[in-house]
């Protein structure tokens, strides 16, 4: 099932730029061009949503027509240091994933499903990691998650197959895998039509096979519309000896904690 090409080198990490040089990345749908000048960085990108399996990192790039890139941006600094840090990160808003087929979790049961989400790229320059830009590798559609149009929050929308067998999850190089443990402690069947993942509380880990994982999320439903959520503060067991690549955008409450989330399931 997993026919994705093996990824020998990670696309993230630190890249050295000599002055005036430019490099190109192709990470899934995203093509990224970066150029370093004496006192500035040039960044341009475009997306082709049909391409998912591309993975080419830090290729030398010579393009006389930089100004032809519609998305070109210049970042001015006092002195552009040669190092550029490329870090995978997660979206800046929660992601609402909709199972392709609604899931029914029987009373008293629990299941672990794997949710795959596209990562973002964070670009930082120099020793002090001067923040340049964050780019979504795949632009997800906006959506609203809440009981009404008055209450709720803006999120990104995604669909998931909620696979239970990890071997069946397509491991695209730009997507992260989040193990989600769902526990139904009630006496009713839990119908899961939408699942809001608070990705801004999750960390990203890189496995030895250069795959991206996020912290494991546990959801427990006992009754009513309230679901308690717990985020593990370590790499999921399935990721093996994974190293943390990027911490959460916002720290969840202490100790990984249990947070009551109303209307967690749509």
């Amino acid at each position, binding site marked *: 099932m997993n026919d994705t090409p093996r990824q020998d080198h990670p696309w993230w990490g630190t890249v050295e730029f000599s002055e005036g040089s430019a490099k190109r990345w192709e990470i899934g749908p995203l093509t990224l061009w970066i150029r370093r000048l004496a006192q500035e960085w040039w960044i341009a990108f475009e997306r082709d949503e049909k391409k998912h399996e591309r993975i080419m990192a830090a290729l030398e790039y010579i393009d006389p027509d930089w100004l032809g890139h519609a998305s070109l941006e210049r970042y001015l600094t006092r002195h552009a240091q040669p190092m550029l840090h490329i870090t995978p990160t997660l979206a800046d808003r929660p992601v*609402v994933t*909709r199972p392709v087929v609604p899931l029914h979790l029987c009373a008293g049961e629990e299941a672990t499903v794997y949710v795959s989400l596209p990562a973002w790229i964070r670009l930082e320059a120099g020793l002090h990691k001067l923040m340049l830009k964050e780019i979504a590798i795949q*632009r*997800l*559609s*906006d959506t*609203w998650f809440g009981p009404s149009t008055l209450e709720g929050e*803006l999120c990104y*929308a995604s669909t998931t197959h909620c696979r239970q067998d990890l071997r069946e999850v397509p491991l695209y190089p730009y997507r992260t895998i989040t193990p989600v443990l769902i526990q139904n402690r009630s006496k009713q069947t839990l119908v899961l039509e*939408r699942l809001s993942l608070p990705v801004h509380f999750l960390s990203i880990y890189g496995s030895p096979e250069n795959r991206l994982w996020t912290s494991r999320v546990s959801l427990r439903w006992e009754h009513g519309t309230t679901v308690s959520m717990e985020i593990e503060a370590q790499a999921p067991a399935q990721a093996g000896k994974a190293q943390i690549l990027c911490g959460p955008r916002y720290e969840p409450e202490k100790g990984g904690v249990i947070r009551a989330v109303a209307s967690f399931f749509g």
Partner: protein
Amino acid sequence: MDDWWTNILNVMSSDRVFILLRALVIASVGFVVARMASAAVLRVMGKFLDAQQRMIVSRVVYYVLLGLFLLSALHELGFSLSILVGAAGILSVAVGFASQTSASNLISGLFLVAERPFSVGDVITLGATTGEVLSIDLLSVKLRTLDNLYVRIPNETVIKSEVTTLTKFPIRRIDLQLGVAYKEDIAKVRELLLQLADKNPLSLEEPKPLFIFLGFGDSAINLQFSIWVKRENFLDLKNSIQEEIKIAFEREDIEIPFPQRTLVAGGDQPFAVRVVEGREKSLD
């Protein structure tokens, strides 16, 4: 000449000049202190308040302090405060009759501040005017329209009229009115529109797009397609989705008809037509 100079000296050395100077100093100090106090209060409390609350707090502090200093200055000049208050009472009745409109605006302004249907920084539509609220003052609301004009609307008008606040909620709906030819397959049109909304990342997935069959029009089947969008992306989506609909309709040969008229001659005979120099021309 000497008498005149003596008089001046007498006046200058009299107590009255000192009293007047003292009153002037109190009033001037009042202006400065009120301004400084208002700025200081804003610095301390500013981060806890929104733009409108900041404006109200700063004005209240400023005018209360200034009023106290001016009263004190008047007292220094020998005005009795009880007489002043009595005079103010009589004066207010007279002024009230003379300035009913202003008084009405003033009271409306107080209600507006209390009710808070919108705040400074919101975008509102009132009648034919849409603009960003610059300030909510005692007599009027000031707007900056989208084409950068300064509009002053009396508070009374605001209280009496229907006001729409465009920036109250984070998401809003775009209602597109469409017409397609009678020959078109409505199910296909609906499917195409839903696909376009799904592909456009600015269109919210939830709440779901709405497709309404409005009715049978004179020249077309009238449809409404409503999509939800993040407030800030309203114009971007409105432009992009309509462009995409036009392109998709042309690609799929879905006709957007122009207004049509069917002319009936009234009898059994059709209109007679003859061709003149290659062009058709009616005989009538």
